[in-house]
């Protein structure tokens, strides 16, 4: 099997041709995106090189706490991204979200690296961090969609939720449909991804492994495990988080704390 071909610095800079195309398009059509494209390009270079150095350091250090520390930073960063997307001020949802994300992503990553792939030790950073990163990156989007849906439907359907409460429902019964809709909305993208994978796209990880010289059939096995892992972790995280956040949308008297939308 051939090792991957190295990309020299000059070859890497040649990749900027694509950015040039985007910049020219933005200029010609007055899209006003030139500044964002420049900043995005700089950040791509800086963030990925930084990550490369950090990963090289961690892979060489062989330290479980350092690995878990990086994992924790990834979870906290993901929670900030969710906070930026959801923009809800009246219900404190971030702390339970971070704790649930940490617990469920950790369990998923440990199961996949330690049990399915059989890495020893289970926290071997070369496996644990990329697997954890993929779980966090994908589930984060699902969770943001689910939380956003929960808040927006509770606001839109406030009259119905309160009517149910007044007719003897507890808060769970009053928001049952909304709870289901929120979790489904979060899960649909990862289920759709299972439908299209291999037909309409080659997933990033598999493409990476194949480019790196791995046997495509082994890459496929990894990819299948990843797809299953993403669906499972999305379901687990969405279910637990939405359950906790929904409770926080109701007060001690099970009254809905969100105003109508």
């Amino acid at each position, binding site marked *: 099997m051939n090792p991957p071909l190295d990309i020299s610095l000059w070859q890497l800079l040649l990749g900027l041709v694509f950015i040039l195309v985007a910049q020219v398009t933005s200029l010609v059509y007055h899209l006003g995106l030139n500044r964002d494209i420049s900043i995005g390009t700089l950040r791509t270079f800086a963030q990925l090189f930084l990550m490369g150095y950090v990963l090289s350091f961690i892979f060489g250090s062989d330290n479980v706490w350092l690995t878990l520390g990086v994992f924790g930073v990834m979870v906290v960063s993901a929670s900030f991204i969710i906070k930026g997307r959801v923009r809800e001020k009246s219900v404190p949802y971030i702390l339970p979200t971070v704790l649930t994300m940490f617990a469920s992503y950790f369990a998923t990553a440990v199961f996949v690296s330690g049990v399915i792939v059989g890495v020893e030790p289970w926290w071997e950073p070369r496996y644990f961090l990329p697997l954890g990163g993929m779980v966090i990156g994908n589930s984060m989007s699902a969770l943001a969609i689910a939380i956003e849906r929960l808040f927006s439907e509770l606001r839109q359907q406030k*009259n*119905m939720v*309160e*009517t*149910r*409460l*007044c*007719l*003897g*429902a*507890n808060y769970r*019964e009053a928001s049952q449909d909304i709870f289901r809709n929120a979790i489904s909305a979060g899960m649909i993208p990862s289920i759709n991804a299972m439908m299209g994978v291999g037909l309409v796209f080659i997933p990033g990880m598999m493409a990476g492994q194949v480019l790196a010289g791995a046997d495509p059939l082994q890459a496929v096995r990894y990819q299948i495990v990843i797809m299953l892992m993403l669906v499972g972790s999305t379901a687990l995280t969405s279910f637990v988080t939405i359950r906790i956040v929904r409770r926080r949308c109701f*007060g*001690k*008297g*099970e*009254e*809905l704390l969100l105003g109508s939308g």
Partner: protein
Amino acid sequence: MSSLISLEHLGFSYDSSSAPLFDDVNLEISRGDFLLIRGASGTGKSTLLRLVCRLQPHCRGRILFKGRTVESIPPAELRRQVLYTTQLPAMMDGTVRANLLFPFSFESNREKAVPPDDALRGMLEEFYLHDIPLDHHALNLSVGQQQRVALMRAILQKPEVILFDEPTSALDGESASMVFRIIEHLNRDQQMTVVMVTHSDYRPERITPAIYLLEHRKLRRL
């Protein structure tokens, strides 16, 4: 006669920094009473009703139902007995029957017997809905008809007190008088305790209500 509901020095502000919506409100409601609470928009009439059934947490004072503070009663149990009806009827996507019966699936209502179709049809007649079949889609009804279905749904739960929040604000004159006639019938013939908030000049025909005015942050009897 001991009070069914007592409000003692009740006050409410939206948050600690804002001026109170109302303050030091005292009110005694006995079984079988018919209370009308009037006041201009924004004086806090709806909030007052919502505080009684804990749809909003209150700030100052006490609310007692049958001598117990409302906070000491499990919310679903309180709301089954002190039933608040919203200004606009909330109908779910389904038949009239489904809309009338869905509350019976709630944990707190499970011991109640689900009324058979004959009983429901009889009630539809009493509520001036005799031409509406039980299989009719509820979202296709007019707002006035929906309001009467919502009222019927509330009565089916046999509450002791009904809190009406501007029940006719979205209705035309004819629908409004039907709703008023039903409410009067509930109070006069079924001894249901009624508290109604309104900014209209409505006055029941064959009942002498206790009329209160919420104005300048205070509640006073007229």
